């Protein structure tokens, strides 16, 4: 083939101080294709893309765009070269409108009004062409994550990007939103745009990409045609060993109820009722998965159970009522009652990013025996304990003194998990356990959860990944608009039925008939 590559990287290297994030990486992406990049947490994917987008400067190497050697010293140059990027953590101004975010940096002239008017027209056009509907006047902070992502794509298209980079775009999306995104990407490919897609999900790679590259420890280990490979092979290339892609577990043996929730209601700060009478039971020795499109009250349910959010109704733990509004409705009291909690948002809830790993490993349990019994905390014991936990959970690097922010997402998650599981709770609340985590780590995390269940503990799992819910849960409850729409056994349901329940349809058959 003699066609010129849309993007060609030659010998890119980049070090952050002593860390070599990219080592001599070369890659070629043809125009009008979707190119996937996979790799473990910290493999260097985001760094490579940031270099392409001019966000970082490479130490060495060349960038060729459409057959021309191009210097990309800053994002402006990247934009000029027709590159657009959707970062993993969106680069949006939260209290600006969609329009303002779109025109930011691409205004026509010193006054805003003409730019805004023009953008309004262009957005309307783009929305129709690529299914990218968003309310142009809405504030970003009022939009769902999926819509925020659309704004990011719109930003790139508004700047007439021909090359679009997406870094882990589906990590925070619901399945429906992810499907929608892929439709958009397909549309863009048909228009001749070139797309680079970073993801941890092999299913997505197989579904949409044309070619795929695998990265490991800063190096590009392989580039293959998607059609000529399979998930198992990719997983092995990525992790360097065979990976079990299916959760391996024996049937559950549910015993007596540990958690009994009845008629639980919660009204948030804005006065909106988020939980509208939840009834739910979780027994010892079973995993109950809660499926649902995010924003339907799952987070609030976990918050109320975990002790931050007042509620009415009743929660019984091992037969005893929990305080829902008073002094004992905080996280500390919940932990005292045997409830462990791996929160959805590890960056803002589960960890203090600037604390060391050993400090994080007692977070929430700092009044417990882990910290010693004296007036002062027993730091030596805490460090030893943390080291032991990190070894058992294979946290890499196994250094308790390292700050949490210096661990990759997967390893951060393991630190939280180790803390909560090693406490041996009667009930473990666990939210989005594998968000943004690479498949090697996912396998490990799933194993831990199943082991805990087999030890006779109750587990309540919330995840937007239907695959994860389906494969881990012993029983599935579907939430919609603050209510449980129904419970199903994984063996007796499928993604379609769950999808309908998640959309608020209680009786799928009814829908089929009328």
């Amino acid at each position, binding site marked *: 083939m003699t066609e010129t590559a849309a993007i060609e990287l030659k010998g890119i290297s980049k070090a952050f101080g002593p860390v070599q994030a990219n080592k001599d990486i070369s890659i070629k992406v043809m125009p009008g294709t979707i190119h996937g990049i996979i790799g473990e947490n910290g493999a260097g994917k*985001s*760094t490579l893309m*940031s270099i392409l*987008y001019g*966000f*970082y400067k490479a130490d060495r190497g060349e960038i060729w765009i459409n057959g021309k050697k191009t210097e990309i010293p*800053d*994002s*402006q*140059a*990247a*934009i*000029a070269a027709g590159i657009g*990027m959707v*970062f*993993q*953590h969106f*680069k*949006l*101004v*939260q*209290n*600006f409108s969609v329009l*303002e*975010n779109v*025109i*930011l*940096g*691409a*205004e026509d*002239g*010193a*006054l*805003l*009004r003409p*730019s805004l008017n023009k953008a309004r027209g262009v957005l309307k056009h783009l929305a129709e062409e690529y299914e990218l509907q968003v309310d142009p006047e809405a504030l970003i902070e009022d939009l769902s994550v999926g819509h925020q992502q659309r704004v990011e794509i719109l*930003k790139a298209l508004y700047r007439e990007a021909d090359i679009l980079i997406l870094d882990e775009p589906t990590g925070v999306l619901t399945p429906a939103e992810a499907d929608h995104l892929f439709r958009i990407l397909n549309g863009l490919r048909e228009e001749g745009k070139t797309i680079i897609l970073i993801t941890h999900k092999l299913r997505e790679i197989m579904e949409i990409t044309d070619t795929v590259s695998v990265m490991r420890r800063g190096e590009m280990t392989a580039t293959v045609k998607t059609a000529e490979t399979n998930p198992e092979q990719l997983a092995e290339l990525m992790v360097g060993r065979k990976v079990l892609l299916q959760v391996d577990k024996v049937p559950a043996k549910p015993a007596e109820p540990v958690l009994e929730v009845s008629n639980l209601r919660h009204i948030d700060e804005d006065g909106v009722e988020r939980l509208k009478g939840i009834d739910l039971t979780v027994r010892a020795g079973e995993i109950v998965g809660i499926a649902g499109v995010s924003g339907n009250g799952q987070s609030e349910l976990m918050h109320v159970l975990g002790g931050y959010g007042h509620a009415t109704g009743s929660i019984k733990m091992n037969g005893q009522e929990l305080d829902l509004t008073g002094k004992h409705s905080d996280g500390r009291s919940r932990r005292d009652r045997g409830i462990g909690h791996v929160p959805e948002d590890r960056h803002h809830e589960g960890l203090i990013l600037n604390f060391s790993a050993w400090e994080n490993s007692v977070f929430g349990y700092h009044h417990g025996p882990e910290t010693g019994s004296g007036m002062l905390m027993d730091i030596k014991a805490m460090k030893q304990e943390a080291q032991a936990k990190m070894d058992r959970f294979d946290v890499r690097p196994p250094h308790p003194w390292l700050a949490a922010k210096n661990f990759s997402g997967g390893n951060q998650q393991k630190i939280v998990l180790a803390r909560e599981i090693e406490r041996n709770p009667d009930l473990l609340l666990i939210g989005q356990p594998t968000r943004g985590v690479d498949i090697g780590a996912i396998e490990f995390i799933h194993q831990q959860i199943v082991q805990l269940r087999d030890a006779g503990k109750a587990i309540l799992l919330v995840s937007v990944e239907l695959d994860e819910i389906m494969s881990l849960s012993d029983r599935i409850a579907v939430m919609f608009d603050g209510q449980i729409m129904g419970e199903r056994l994984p063996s007796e349901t499928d993604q379609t039925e769950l999808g309908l329940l998640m959309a608020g349809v209680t009786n799928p058959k009814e829908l089929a008939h009328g």
Partner: protein
Amino acid sequence: MDLAVIIQVLDSSIRLSTPLLLACLAGLFSERAGIFDIGLEGKMLISAFASAAFAFTTGNVWIGLMAGIGASLALSAIHGLASITFRGNQLISGVALNFLASGLTVLIAQNWFKQGGRTPTIPEEQRFQDITLPFADALRDVPVFGPIYSDLISGHSALAYIAFLMVPLTWWVLFRTRFGLRLRAVGEAPDAVDTAGVSVIGLRFAAVGTCGVLCGIAGAYLATSLQAGFVKEMTAGRGYIALAALIFAKWRPWYALMACLLFGFLQAVALRFQNIRLGDFVIPVQLMEALPYILTVVILAGFVGKAIPPRAGGEPYVKER
């Protein structure tokens, strides 16, 4: 209380509010761009000195104003260097610059004029004159409106009118221009600005520079319009009050106007109504003196909700993954 007294108090409020307003808007530009500035006091002070010194020596108050702005800008430049270029701590930089201004003004003034850290008195005609608005005299006898127009609205110096015009102008710049959009964005999410291909550093320096210009005007107003020269420490904590007004105003121009007028009004009232007698008991002057501050706390506690600063405020911008 008759109209004349009310007008006197309001008139006084306007004069006391003007420097606060200029400094507050100055802080608004800086902090909206994510650079906290507790050095407003120092910038005002150094400008008060420079404007008085140059107005006196050149005999031209406009040159004085320019010198004041220039001196204030010099401090802004240091603040920018420390907090933008070298990603230093913005609070420390502000504290340091306040000290620097406090020391330097007296040191230089003493060196130049040998009058003990003061500038000589600037003759009346070399200062900013009070401007009598058209028809002010003719309309004075019209009931109610007349005194309001000719005694309250008319009769302030050019700088005071500039200060009040700065409010709509600031609003317009912030919310209706490209510069304003980018400036607000860089205070909320500098990474968004950076990835949109706009220089974070350039924008922030522009904001800090604007802050310097406005503080410069504020200082010149004190020394060459309200007063006839520079006296050491003559800003007397107004920079801190302006900062409080800024937070009070939740970083919005029109609210800033309200907050500064309120502070000015409270001070004017406290000055005008000392030694109030309630029967046998005389309200101590100390209570009147503290009243503006007490009322501020009360208002803050009772009516003003949480003030959320610009999200990226106070933090230097470091590219993040």
